[in-house]
């Protein structure tokens, strides 16, 4: 199909675009400073308290013969993760650190400084999220664009979307103007569940906040459980971002990036006629 037949449609409102990019910056720095904070005690537990001898996951370094190796333990399984987790850096200059320096902010292990980064961007993230929610609820973005319709959730449609996504075939014409059901459910899950979960489990790290809202830390199963969920949600977000980036590339890198910058998204009209 010739290029001249494509039509630019206005796809993303300014608030969506702005909050999206602020989130890119905030989440990146939250993740990287968070990995540094994790390095202060690279082990996770369930319940209220730590059982130091039995974390469900831990990252560390230990001697194996004459060599130091990075060891990641999950349950009763142990993995040699030298170079990435537990013991990393250039060969000859390796250091015992949970996550490698290229993945953390600052690049050297420092709990006090990584906390400054983390809380600064936590506030940016919270304000950004509140603006997104407020505008999304009042302006109808969440209801109109993200809430699946009855047609969306019909098993037949869901199956159809799963199959076409698996084949990396993306909708054209009118269908390309709006999110499909898989996008809607994923985005809603991220903005309504995953991102708020990060904030709530993060707040549970505060002993003062715990005292005032014991029900919240209980809801997560204790403070150490909340720390575990904070970590797992962070990696769920990483997983979402990787999938998201893959779909961006698969469905048209520049068209997608342009639409998130200028708002304009090129669609190829249906055979049935021009989009209105």
């Amino acid at each position, binding site marked *: 199909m010739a290029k001249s037949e494509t039509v630019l449609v206005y796809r993303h409102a300014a608030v969506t675009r702005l909050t999206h990019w602020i989130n890119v910056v905030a989440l990146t720095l939250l993740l990287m400073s968070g990995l540094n904070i994790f390095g202060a005690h690279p082990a996770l537990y369930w319940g209220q308290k730590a059982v130091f001898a039995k974390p469900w996951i831990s990252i560390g370094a230990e001697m194996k013969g004459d060599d130091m190796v990075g060891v990641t333990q999950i349950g009763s399984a142990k993995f040699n993760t030298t170079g990435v987790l537990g013991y990393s850096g250039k060969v000859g200059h390796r250091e015992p650190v949970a996550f490698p320096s290229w993945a953390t902010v*600052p690049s050297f292990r420092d709990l*006090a400084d990584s906390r400054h980064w983390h809380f600064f961007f936590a506030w940016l993230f919270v304000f950004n999220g509140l603006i997104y929610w407020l505008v999304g609820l009042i302006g109808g973005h969440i209801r109109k664009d993200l809430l699946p319709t009855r047609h969306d959730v019909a098993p037949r449609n869901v199956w159809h979307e799963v199959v076409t996504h698996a084949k990396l075939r993306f909708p054209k014409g009118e269908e390309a103007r709006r999110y499909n059901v898989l996008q809607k459910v994923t985005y809603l899950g991220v903005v309504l569940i995953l991102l708020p979960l990060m904030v709530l489990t993060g707040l549970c790290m505060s002993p003062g906040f715990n005292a005032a809202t014991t029900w919240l830390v209980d809801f997560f199963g204790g403070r150490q459980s909340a720390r575990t969920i904070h970590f797992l949600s962070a990696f769920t977000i990483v997983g979402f971002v990787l999938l998201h980036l893959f779909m961006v590339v698969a469905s048209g890198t520049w068209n997608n990036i342009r639409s998130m910058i200028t708002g304009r998204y090129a669609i190829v009209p249906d055979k049935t006629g021009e989009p209105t």
Partner: protein
Amino acid sequence: MTLSTHRRGWLRAGLASVGALVLGACDKITADPKGVAFLQSAEGLTRRAQRLFVDRKALAREFTHADISPDFRPNGSISPADEDYVALKTAGFADYRLVIDGLVEKPLSLSLADLRAQPSRTQITRHDCVEGWSSIAKWTGARLGPLLDQAGLKPTARYIVFHCGDTLEESLDGTGKYYESIDLIDAHHPQTILAYAMNDRVLPVAHGAPLRLRVERQLGYKQAKYIMRIEVVEDYKHLGRGNGGFWEDRGYEWYAGI
């Protein structure tokens, strides 16, 4: 080399150099006191938000005997080498006197027996270290509020400073001695105690014998160990490096709210 692997190589190199630039910039900001001060401006927001939304009289959750950690981890100093402290310890703390002075009407000097005779409280609470771990223990101690009432605070009193017996970092200017400070609201909170017992036994040296602070609802580094003297002050700027505590002088928040 095919075009696509060539392109991939460029992409990878591009991403790596952007990443290195960003990381380098972050490290530069971290190394610059102004950069850190800017990031730390968020801490004021955190403190104010917690003051606004969190009831400061709320009690920290108390647990049952079954919840007590068998592996409570001692942190910071675990066996102070300071001469004065070692002398006290050798004598089984028989000569120990807690001094409460500064902006008070009537300075106090209390032996351990005196402290045990004060209004006390026992609580099984969770200790949350800034590193991320938590341990639970049962603490018994003299309530700080009534002690301060006995000493009588002067109108200008604003902070309670705990001078400790341990040097956690050797330094030429003497700022390596542990100390902490809290405000009057935390000082008068019913769960704020000077603990002399842990899990129904005499407080072990590793956990701060003979006396440590329990100011629940704050992080572990506020729970000063080896308390020798309590000084009531109007401001803590003249102490240590001026930030109100040993770890506060090393970049941690004075209000250890999260």
